[in-house]
C-alpha cells in the first residue's frame, strides 16, 4: 500500500493540470454544452497527444499499460474540471471489453485507434426496466444468420453514444446461454438512435436495432464470458466515475470556500457565521470520506468478483451520498446564485447527480452491498 504518487501518476496529474485548468470554468462548460457533441473534439485530440487515451491500453498496442490507480487519478482531474469528454465510455469501458475480446489482433488494432484518438466507442447495454447491476438481463437478441447475426431489440440511455463511431452492444444469442458483446458501427443500417443531452451536458442515445445485420466477427466476447466481462467493465467505469465525483467534490468545496469568504450579508462575510462554517465542515468531511472510499474501491478493484463488487457498491453508497451533501450544501451557501447556470456550483451539482445514478443508483448499490453482508 502506497499513497504517494508514482512518476507516471505525477506526470499525468501535471499534464492534467496544464490542459484542464484553463478551461475549468462556467463559460467553457456552457459553450461545450451548446456544442454539437457536448465536448471539444480538439481537446479530445490533445487527450490523445498526452497519452491519456493510451493509459489502460496494453503496451503491445502502443499503450501505457496503466493501473486502475492511474486511471482513477486522471479521472479525479477530469472530475475537478467537469470534463464532458467520453473518457469513461471509450477509454475505461470499451478498452476493458476489447482487452478481453476473442480476436486479440483485431482488438489491439481497435485499441490503437482509441489511443490515437480516431475511434470512440460507447456501450449500449441498458434496457428500459432492467436492473442496472444485472447486466445479463438483456432482451436484445442476436439471431445467427448467414455466417453472422441479425440483431434486434432496443437500448436506453447509452452514454456518450452520440459521439461514438462504434457501439458495444450486449445481447442474448439465440440458442446460447449468457450474453454476447457485439461491436457495431454506429451508422449500421437498421440501427436508429434518438439522442439527447443529460442534465450535466453529456449526451446519450436511445437505440433501436431492427434486424441489424452483423458479420460473425462483430462478436467480441461470447455468451460464456460476456456477462462477467461486462460486469468487470462496468465496475471499472464506476470507479472512474467515482474518481470524477471525488474531483468534482473537492473542486466544489474550493469554490464554496472562496464564495463564503467573498459574499457579504449583514455587513460581514457569510463565512464568519458558524452555521455556514459548519456546513462547510460537513462538506469537507463528506469529500474526505469520499476519497477514502475511492481508495477502498481501488484496493479491491482486482479482487475476486464478490469482494470487488461489494467494495464497489459500498464506495458508491458513501460517494453518492457525499456528492449530495457537497453539492446541495454548496448550492445552499451560494443562495440564489447557486441556482443559476452562471455559477460553477450548479454545474458540479448536476454532474454529481449524474454520476450518482449511472451504472446503478444508491438504492441498487445499497441493496447489493447489504446482500453481500448478510448473504
Amino acid at each position, binding site marked *: 500500500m502506497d499513497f504517494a504518487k508514482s512518476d507516471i501518476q505525477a506526470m499525468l496529474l501535471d499534464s492534467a493540470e496544464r490542459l484542464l485548468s484553463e478551461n475549468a470554468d462556467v463559460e467553457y462548460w456552457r459553450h461545450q454544452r451548446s456544442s454539437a457533441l457536448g465536448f471539444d473534439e480538439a481537446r479530445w485530440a490533445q487527450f490523445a497527444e498526452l497519452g491519456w487515451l493510451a493509459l489502460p491500453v496494453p503496451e503491445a498496442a502502443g499503450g501505457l499499460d496503466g493501473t486502475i490507480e492511474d486511471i482513477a487519478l486522471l479521472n479525479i482531474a477530469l472530475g475537478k474540471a467537469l470534463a464532458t469528454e467520453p473518457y469513461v465510455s471509450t477509454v475505461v469501458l470499451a478498452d476493458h471489453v476489447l482487452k478481453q475480446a476473442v480476436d486479440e489482433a483485431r482488438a489491439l488494432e481497435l485499441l490503437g485507434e482509441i489511443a490515437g484518438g480516431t475511434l470512440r466507442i460507447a456501450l449500449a447495454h*441498458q434496457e*428500459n*426496466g*432492467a*436492473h*442496472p447491476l*444485472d447486466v445479463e*438481463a438483456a432482451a436484445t437478441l442476436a439471431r445467427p444468420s448467414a455466417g453472422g447475426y441479425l440483431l434486434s431489440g432496443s437500448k*436506453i*440511455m447509452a452514454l456518450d453514444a452520440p459521439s461514438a463511431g462504434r457501439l458495444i452492444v450486449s445481447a442474448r444469442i439465440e440458442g446460447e446461454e449468457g450474453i454476447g458483446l457485439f461491436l457495431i458501427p454506429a451508422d449500421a443500417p437498421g440501427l436508429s438512435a434518438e439522442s*439527447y*443531452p*443529460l*442534465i*450535466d451536458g453529456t449526451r*446519450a442515445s*436511445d437505440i433501436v436495432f431492427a434486424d441489424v445485420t452483423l458479420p460473425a466477427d462483430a462478436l467480441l466476447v461470447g455468451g460464456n464470458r460476456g456477462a462477467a466481462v461486462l460486469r468487470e467493465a462496468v465496475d471499472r467505469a464506476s470507479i472512474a466515475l467515482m474518481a470524477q465525483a471525488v474531483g468534482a467534490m473537492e473542486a466544489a468545496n474550493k469554490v464554496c470556500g472562496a464564495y463564503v469568504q467573498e459574499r*457579504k*450579508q*449583514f*455587513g460581514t462575510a457569510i463565512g464568519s*457565521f458558524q*452555521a*455556514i462554517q459548519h456546513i462547510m465542515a460537513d462538506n469537507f468531511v463528506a469529500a474526505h470520506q469520499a476519497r477514502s472510499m475511492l481508495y477502498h474501491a481501488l484496493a479491491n478493484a482486482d479482487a475476486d468478483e464478490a469482494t470487488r463488487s461489494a467494495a464497489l457498491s459500498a464506495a458508491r453508497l458513501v460517494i453518492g451520498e457525499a456528492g449530495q451533501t457537497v453539492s*446541495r450544501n454548496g*448550492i*445552499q451557501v451560494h*443562495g*440564489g446564485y*447557486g*441556482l*443559476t*447556470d*452562471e455559477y460553477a456550483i*450548479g*454545474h458540479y*451539482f*448536476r454532474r454529481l*447527480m*449524474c454520476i450518482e*445514478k*449511472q451504472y446503478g*443508483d*444508491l*438504492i*441498487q448499490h*445499497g*441493496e447489493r452491498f447489504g446482500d453481500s453482508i448478510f448473504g
Partner: protein
Amino acid sequence: MELRLDPDLETFRKEVRAFIDRVLPADMKERQLRKVANNAAVPDLLEWMRILNAHGRSVPHWPEEHGGCGWTPMQLFIFNEELYKADAPEFDWGGTHMLGPVLYTYGSDYLKDKFLPMIREGVTMWAQGFSEPGSGSDLASLRTSAELVGDKYVVNGQKIWTSGAAHADWGFFLVRTDKNVKPQRGISFLIIKMDTPGITVRQIPQINGEAHLCEVFLDNVEVPADQLIGEPGMGWTYAKFLLEHERTTSSFIYWSKRELARAKDIALGESVGGRRVADDPAFRARFAKVEADLLALEWSVLRVLAHEEFDAPEAAAASVLKIRGSELQQEITMLQVDAMGAKSLRFFDVAPVPPPAPTDAWPDYAPGRTTVALINRAATIYGGSKQIQKNILAKLAFGL
C-alpha cells in the same frame, strides 16, 4: 379540543371538486399536468383566473367587498387543495396573495380601484421586486432608491430573483425613499409598470434550463407618486404584513401533496428488474417517512389556520412551516427523481410546449420531474433561507 373533521366540510369539498371538474378545461389540465417547468404556462394562468373570476372564485381569500368568497380558513384550505389535486393552473401568487392583501389593507382608494380588479380578473401578471444582488437574506439593506421629484418618484437600482419579470405587466417593488433613517424605516412599497422607460429585464439562465428568474435594472425610472402604497417609509411594515398574512403559504402544502401523489404514480409506474419501485423496501420506507412528515406539516398548517395557542409566538410556527415546507418540497421532488433512477438524468427543454409525446420508456411523468427538482433547491433559500429561519426560531422560541 376535538379533532375530527367537520362533516360539513366534506360536503363543501365535494361541491368544490364538482365545480372545478365543471369549469377546468381539459386541455388546460393536460398542459398543467405535463408542463416541464413549474412556471411554464403563463397564458393558461391568466385564462384560468378569468374562468374562476367568472364564477366569483378567483380571489376567494379576499374580503367579500373586493370579490372574496367569505370562506373560513378551512374552506380556503380545501379549495386550494382541490385546485392542486385537479391540476388546475397556479394562481398568480404575486398579485392574488402578495400584492392584493397589501393593496386592500393599505392602498388608497385610487390604487384599490385601479389594481384590485386587474388582479381579480386575470388581466395582469405581477412581478415582485424585493431582493437585490447585495441583499439576499439581509433584505433590509436594499439600496434601490426612489427619489420624489415633483409628482413622480425617480427610481434607480437593481433587483434580482424577480420571478417572471420578463412576462409581467406590473411589478411591486421595495425601494428606499429615505437614506437618513434606520434601514427598515426608509423603505417604501411602490407599484411600477414594467414597460416604463428605464427598466431593463435580464432573464437569468437557471440550472434547470429555465430563465424564469430575472434581474431588473431600473435607470431613472419615473413612477407616478400616487403608485406608492400607503405611507412613505412604511414599506418594511407592509412587507412584513404580507408575509404574516400568508403564513401558511410557505408550507407549499397543496403543491407538495399533489407532487407526493405524483411520486407515488411514478413509483408504481417504474420497474427495475421486474420489481415496481414502489415495492422496493428501502424506497417504500423512505416514501412512508416523507408522507408521514407531510401529514405533520399539514396539521401544522391547520393549527396555524386555527390560531391554536401554543408555547411560543405565532411567528415561530410560520418559521416551522417554512423550514419543513421547503425541506419537504425538496424531499418529494427527489423521491420523484430517484424513483426514475438514471432516467431522471435526461434533460428536457422547457421551451417546447407540450413536451415530447409519451412512450413506454418515457411516460408522461418523465419530462419535468428533474427540471423541477433541480430548481427546488431554491426552496430552502428564498423567502428567508433555512439558516435565517432557524435564527428566528431560536430567538422566538427560546430567546436565544
